[in-house]
């Protein structure tokens, strides 16, 4: 790991590592360009001989993928803001509590984190039924009302805890209420955390496979992971078709991530006032 003696070697190692991590995605993309109906490859080559976008047309003809995409967008458009508000409120509330109270909340949050998701499936099913949320978009975004995951609350808690108490006292002296302090003082100081939680939440809801599996009946609110499962069951061996749908599903989060990436790179996590 000596940084002075072998800079070239290290750069090469870094490049190879990056490529290694990108490889599955490249393979997925390349296979989606395979012409439909042609024999599967038997020799190693990255791109098919005659790459084509035909499979992308086929998935839209086979399934109402446009609607699924809009459904997915609606889910994240609702879930991400709700999660951000609930989890940052909770994080701020926790950070301003007395030390013993903080401890209790941390313990509670960790205990909740340990509850297996599968333990909640059937009971949540009955709950959503009672609330009239079954087979609606609300069943898909319900966890947003608890900040999606205690993990995100703890992330905000960690960020807010680093803000010196004097800043909050100053805000109080100037007459700012709790919500004003949250919006004008606390949130701007935890911007990176907020963007991070937002991205994680986006990825979580965008890729959520089990909620639509369990809490949706009709295709009306189905999201993109449902389309992937459908394709897998309909045409198990039409690889190019399935992978085209997989690429389509992956596209939005990847673009979003690449757009947001500069924010994380400013100074990862280390943000201090």
């Amino acid at each position, binding site marked *: 790991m000596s940084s002075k003696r072998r800079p070239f070697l290290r750069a090469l190692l870094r490049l190879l590592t990056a490529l290694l991590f990108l490889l599955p995605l490249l393979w997925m993309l390349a296979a989606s360009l395979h012409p439909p109906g042609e*024999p599967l490859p038997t020799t190693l080559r990255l791109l098919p001989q005659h790459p084509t976008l035909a499979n992308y047309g086929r998935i839209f003809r086979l399934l109402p993928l446009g609607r699924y995409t809009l459904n997915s967008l609606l889910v994240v458009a609702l879930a991400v803001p709700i999660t951000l508000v609930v989890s940052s409120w909770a994080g701020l509330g926790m950070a301003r509590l007395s030390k013993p109270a903080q401890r209790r909340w941390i313990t509670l949050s960790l205990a909740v984190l340990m509850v297996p998701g599968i333990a909640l499936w059937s009971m949540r099913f009955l709950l959503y039924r009672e609330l009239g949320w079954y087979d609606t978009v609300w069943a898909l975004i319900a966890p947003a009302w608890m900040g999606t995951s205690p993990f995100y609350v703890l992330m905000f808690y960690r960020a807010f805890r680093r803000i010196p108490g004097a800043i909050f006292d100053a805000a109080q002296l100037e007459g700012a209420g709790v919500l004003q302090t949250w919006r004008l003082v606390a949130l701007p100081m935890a911007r990176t955390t907020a963007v991070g939680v937002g991205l994680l939440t986006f990825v979580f809801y965008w890729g959520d496979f089990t909620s639509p599996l*369990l809490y949706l*009946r009709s295709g009306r609110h189905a999201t993109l992971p449902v389309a992937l499962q459908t394709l897998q*069951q309909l045409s198990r061996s039409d690889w190019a078709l399935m992978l085209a749908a997989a690429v389509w599903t992956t596209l939005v989060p990847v673009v979003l991530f690449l757009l947001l990436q500069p924010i994380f790179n400013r100074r990862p996590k280390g943000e201090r006032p």
Partner: protein
Amino acid sequence: MERVQSQTNQKRGAASNNRQRSLLCLSGCFIFLLLISGCGGKAPTAVSFMVFGDPAEYNAYEDLVDTFNAGHDDIQVELTHVPSPGEYRTRLLTEFAAGTPPDISLMNYRRVVSFAANGMLEPLDSYLAQSSLIQPEDFYPVALDAFTWQGQLMCLPQNISSLVVYYNADLFAAAGLPEPADKWTWEEFGQTAVTLTRDFDGDGTIDQYGLGVEPSLFRAAPFIWQNNGPLVDDETQPTRLTLTRPPSLAALQWFTDLHNVAHVVPGREEEASQDSESRFLAGTTAMYLNSRRGVPTYREIDSFAWNVAPLPNGQTSASILHSDGFCLAGTAVNKDAAWTFIEFANSVEGQTILAGTGRTVPSLIAVAQSDAFLNPGQSPSRAQVYLDNAPIMRRVPLISTWEEIESVADEEIERAFYGDISVEEAARLATQRTEEYFLRADFNAP
């Protein structure tokens, strides 16, 4: 609401003319009346209807529902589609358990019993008896029988499909083979498959397989029956699988030898890499065993000619029933409205619509024997093969845990098919492992 009122007020103010005012008043009254009458009971009764299947099948049911809704102002059928058969049962079970199942659901006869045994379905005998559109005699008896649970008709069958051989006629011609006759033997079948299994470039990998078949109990069953072997010890009150009996075992041995000895079927790796149905579609598998459900997809093939032949015969001839029925939930609020739709779907008109998609072999004898099904212009031209199967068709026993039994037996048969264990071992394990499901089952006691 307020905005609407203020708009009307504005309009009213602008209408200084008396005549205009009275006109507005009139139209207002009219709308009001419409609303009243709407609430008064003329709103169409909603009926929910849940189906499974691929997009082609979904389109068929959409056509059916649209035609029905267009002809019935008082009933509105809402179609729900669950694409994957795998999730369908779980989904239905969950919905029934939660107390709000779809009014009508489409179910395979192998799955119906677990619902019927729990009293979740409404028997249809009395409805059918009063129908002016359809009579029990109009249906193939074997199909009605498959949905009869403890003497009551639980669902109305829409089709009587069976297992047949789909074959690539071009590959037969290229190999200089005649197309399968209406009667052929296991030996001829095996020989044909061997001839059609080819390694064109001599590199040791097989480029074209003679046959594709899923290694499952449901696929092996007709061959067991053809060898006069039993599947279970008692057709109506089974207590265990009887795959270990010599004739059953011999049939299973022949079935697995297709892979282990003759090598005419793709191996496990080949099958996982590209399944046999895709190989058939790609023109690299000559024969593929399937029910009628593949036809809409196969009709899109334009690179080769294909057709259907009956299964080969062993000591006797037998095929296996594939049938789905329209089932009415016991909790449905508007049972009469729901029945109206079931009745329509299984009338000559309804079954003709479904037959037009190629997906079904109609359960109504009249439609099955009409051009709507036999359709001379469309592949497969030997559609009569499905109808010839009707007299020799058998079905699996009707017990509530049959699905579990099948899935356990499938695991063992698959292992024997790919040579992991012997057929004897598979038969023994399948019998042993399914015992508990027989113990737990509800039987079809009339």
